[in-house]
């Protein structure tokens, strides 16, 4: 099994520690992992702004970088979902279709593909889990609060394997944080208010850390927490799962 590590562009540039934690975590499971050096971005910033027609070159570059792998693993639900739903190649669509089937978000890869049952990780803190929308409602990483259906949560399942970690309960278990890509800039007021409300929910319920499977949501929340001089921090789920025992 050869895994292609897909590190979203903003993680590569701003949060290298999340990429490192993801790589080390996968390597600890005895997996063969490579990071293709010419990768850039999934194309979502353009597509969600209505410019999907400008993503063809991004898609081609993605396929070129990742077609040789058995699995493509990404520490972001949103970017993984974008590849799953929107990567096309007008010259060889069958390659795009095959790529779309092989891409996995990190936590679902750990619970569903390699079926991780134990971890030697320790994180003795009270943690709130932010369910990012694309991972939740797009990839179904957990049961959605709107549906009448049995409960489950893949990120929670993994966090429960971590020593000392106390998962707090939120008042609103899966409300959007308001990041929304370019929404965060073009609808600044509502975006900020949504983020502040998420922050308040975690704070009220005693979280020391907000974690999640999408660094973009956490980047937005981190920006608000820092402006607020809050003692609460954000941390990507890969960093917790990769923490030393």
């Amino acid at each position, binding site marked *: 099994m050869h895994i292609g590590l897909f590190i979203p562009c903003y993680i590569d540039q701003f949060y290298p520690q999340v990429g490192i934690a993801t790589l080390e975590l996968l390597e600890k499971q005895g997996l063969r992992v490579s990071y293709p050096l010419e990768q850039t971005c999934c194309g979502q*910033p353009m597509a969600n702004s209505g410019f999907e027609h400008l993503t063809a070159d991004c898609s081609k570059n993605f396929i070129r970088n990742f077609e040789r792998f058995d699995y493509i693993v990404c520490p972001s639900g949103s970017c993984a979902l974008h590849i799953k739903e929107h990567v096309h190649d007008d010259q060889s669509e069958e390659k795009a279709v095959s790529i779309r089937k092989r891409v996995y978000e990190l936590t679902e890869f750990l619970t569903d593909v390699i079926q991780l049952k134990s971890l030697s990780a320790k994180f003795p803190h009270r943690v709130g889990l932010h369910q990012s929308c694309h991972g939740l409602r797009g990839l179904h990483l957990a049961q959605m609060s709107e549906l009448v259906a049995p409960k489950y949560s893949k990120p929670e399942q993994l966090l429960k394997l971590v020593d000392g970690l106390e998962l707090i309960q939120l008042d609103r278990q899966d409300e959007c944080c308001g990041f*929304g890509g370019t*929404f965060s800039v073009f609808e600044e*007021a*509502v*975006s*900020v208010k949504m983020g502040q409300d998420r922050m308040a929910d975690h704070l009220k319920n005693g979280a020391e850390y907000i974690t999640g499977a999408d660094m973009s949501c956490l980047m937005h929340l981190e920006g608000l927490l820092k402006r607020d001089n809050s003692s609460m921090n954000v941390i990507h789920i890969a960093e917790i799962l990769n923490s030393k025992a």
Partner: protein
Amino acid sequence: MQQHQTHAELAEQFNRDINRVNWHDQTLWMVREKRDKAAQQVPDWEQLRETASQIKNHTLAHLHAYLLEFEQQALANGIQVHWAADAEEHNRIVHRIIQEHGVDRIVKSKSMLTEECGLNEYLLQQGIEVVDTDLGERIVQLAGEPPSHIVLPCIHWKKEEIGELFHQHLGTPKGNADPDFLTRAARAHLREHFMMRRVAITGVNFAVAETGEFVVCTNEGNADLGAQLADVHIACMGIEKIIPKRNHLGVFLRLLARSATGQPITTYSSHFKKPGPGKALHIVLVDNGRSTRLGSDDFRNALKCIRCGACFNTCPVYRRSGGHSYHTAIAGPIGSILAPALDMEKHADLPFASTLCGSCTNVCPVKIDIHQQLYTWRQVLIKNGHASSTKKAGIQLTGMVLSKPWLFRVSGKVARWIMRTFPGLMNNRFNPWTKQRELPMPPKQSFRDWYVNNRSHD
């Protein structure tokens, strides 16, 4: 250019009063929670949604036949049937019927279709006074505002403000904001109008092709009171309100009120089948862009909407921006996918007033893929030139940088260096990101740099 303020501008104004935003958000979240509780009590809820969705899909696939069947049955029942191609024709037909009865005042129960067609304003211009009899609608009418929510028209009004409004318009004592008292005052005020009016307009929730009857759902009984006391009842409906059989109501009536307010069913589900003795019953079937939508694979299934408003209540953006920020008769997520079809220029901002979180799609009782349609509308709008030149240039540049790996690496490195060296360049009040947020601290090394130094690579 747009003639009115955009959703983002209006939402920013709404957010200046933080207490009001909190109150608005919490009030509507409470409705969402009631909906969840009601749904959880129906074990086969998801099956019910699927069934409703399939009945609607089937109906839309055979809409022509079901509309003709409905017309035939309604005519046989003694209902007078009118067809309107657009809002203007609908308004003219309603006006003509009112004129024929020599009336200049009418009562109307809640109908989103008449809001969509701008009927009140039209009739007012023709010298006809319309009294809205739904309590919430009457409140916004007295205030000179459009509804801000399709099920809860005055949800943006606090009870103290309603007390003041009633004091001004209905002469209730100043400072009395007791909801029971105010409701009684409104009832007395509306009863006078009910007794005096010879023509009543209602909306339609469901029209049954098999029987030629239609069903109107209210909690206040105002549709019944209006229609039963008047000599002439005019019911206005969009052509998508048809359902094939009466027993399909067993699916839709179970879903409608639970999704809307968390009630098991509306207080009144009134069936109208034929005019009373000596009375007239008219029905106006309105297209207004619906058959064009029917021809669109991407947007057809928005015609399944039963106007429950569940997508409003769950929408984190709607709850924090208020209905009026959508500047359209039907606000919220569903309004954002309906309105651009009616006027793309005017409503080009609405599909962007969303984070694409997808909660709307999950609560929708007829499974409309609302957030997918928001995404698709964005593509359509941009292709039709509805993007500012700066946004267009910015996205084009981003697209170019991200499609060339070397350029991405160089620009990333330069950008991080600039951010570290001259933080004030990006971190200022003209940057919407940093107005209320900090930027991430850019590291010296990207992940790729680290990888090249720490792992063997091919």
